[in-house]
């Protein structure tokens, strides 16, 4: 159903619109969500419009924006939302495959490391959302054969530039930070620069392809 969604409070100054159905990420609904997000910029009192994976958080000044009015706006906006017309930019990201996890990761899936590399570099990814860490892209489009549960114990310091996968998602670490995802390689691609007006290099809706710059482990 087109109007399957829930709306909830995130404090007095934010609302979360969740359009996920059955826990699985849906590319079409995400495109509509990004269309809705684009239509919400520039509203008085709205501070942040934050696309997530099949959800959208809108933060506002609760003293100038009436939450129930915003709630209606989001509900109606979602029902009438159309996929954003313009496609995002395309990025080719060079990866040296390898690192501490790739051998166990391949073994766990019962495939060779070469197959992991080929399947990871063979897919076309879409930036579903940017978040968690500065400039971190949530990438959809991972080859289903590479979907594996996250590590039971997260690594404390997954290095900046690590090319990672977790569950059905792919990503790249913009800073060194803890993560439970598996490291498949490394890139020097700059995801975030606080000195730029638009600090994140990637944006929701962009297309990402990984290229094989080398394989060593």
């Amino acid at each position, binding site marked *: 159903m087109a109007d399957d969604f*829930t709306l*909830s*409070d*995130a*404090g*007095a*100054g*934010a609302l*979360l619109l*969740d359009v*996920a159905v059955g*826990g699985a*990420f849906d590319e079409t609904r995400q495109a509509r969500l990004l269309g809705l997000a684009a239509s919400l910029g520039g509203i008085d009192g709205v*501070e*942040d*419009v*934050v*696309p*997530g*994976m*099949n*959800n*959208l*958080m809108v*933060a506002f000044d*609760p*003293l100038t924006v009436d*939450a129930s009015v915003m709630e209606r706006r989001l509900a109606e906006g979602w029902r009438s939302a159309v996929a954003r017309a313009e496609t995002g930019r395309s990025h080719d990201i060079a990866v040296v495959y390898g690192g501490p996890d790739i051998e166990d990761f391949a073994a766990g899936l019962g495939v060779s490391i070469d197959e992991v590399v080929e399947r990871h570099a063979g897919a076309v990814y879409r930036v579903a*959302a*940017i*978040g*968690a*860490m*500065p*400039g*971190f892209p*949530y990438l959809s489009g991972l080859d289903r054969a590479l979907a594996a549960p996250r590590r039971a114990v997260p690594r404390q310091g997954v290095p900046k530039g690590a090319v990672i996968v977790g*569950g059905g998602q792919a990503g790249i670490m*913009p*800073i060194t*930070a803890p993560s439970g995802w598996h490291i498949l390689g490394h890139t020097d691609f700059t995801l*975030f620069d*606080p*000195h730029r007006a*638009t*600090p*994140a290099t990637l944006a*929701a809706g962009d297309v990402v392809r990984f290229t094989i710059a080398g394989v060593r482990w």
Partner: protein
Amino acid sequence: MVIEILSSGALNSVQDRGRRGLLSSGVSRSGAMDLVALEAANALLGNDRDAAAIEVAAFPFRLRFEAATPVAVTGAVAEARLASRRLSPWWAMEAQAGDELTIAPPTTGARVYIAVGGGVDLPPLLGARATDLKSGYGGHEGRGLRRGDRLPLGRRPAGRLPEGGIGALPPPGRSDFALPLRVLLAAEWMEFSEEARDLFATTGWRITAEADRQGCRLEGPELVRARRRELLSHGIVPGTVQVPPSGRPIVQLAEANTCGGYPKIATVIEADLWRLGQAMPDDELRFAVVGRDEAQAALRETAAWLARLRSATALYRVS
């Protein structure tokens, strides 16, 4: 116009009201953990609302003024000495060139704010002067303050503080640190068992040692989710109370990740977030569920208090 840090810990940092509009780039709000104390310090001096101050979370802290400037100290209750004079809590005074300011460990609360005339005048980054300690940008070189750091001061506002200085009465709710944190229900509230929902609102939760500018882990009974399902990643705000698989809540704070995937049982209302900024490990806290109206009324009350402080102090500044 400079202040020199004489003694500091890495947890002390330059903070302002934080960043807005960049959550969708993964940029946390950051900013003062006790925004009311920060705004009050700036109001006492007639500073711009967006002026940056020093957030002190590691004590003792000592600095020296190389030029005369008004200074305000707010937040946690801690002994503060300006040269030979003792500063009462939430007080502002004129510092003379060469004066040293010393802040002792607090007797109540966790964080002290030191504002100076014109604010700490570092170049804004991504719209704010706040330090993001986790990501390492903003403030002074993207890091906590240390001995020998020199911070430039902005232009002090017109007028001088009267002899003896001026002070603020405690803001709303400040006289009782033991009041519960008011929360609004969040997306997954109904997915928790009836017992868990009841426990959430009746337990005295203990703050663990894992408490910093990113968030604060609580110790108490396990909150069981009746309906278990994986959530897709979604935007979160400071104040979000997540319940990871361990069943022990985490309250996300100023430097929290901008997206998360754990179920959310509730959100601490904006007007009460300062309580977490002033909470220490081993402190006990309670939650009380309220509605939107009360959350808004509480914010209005704080805003009105700050506005009154601002206009009252303007009357006292002598030209």
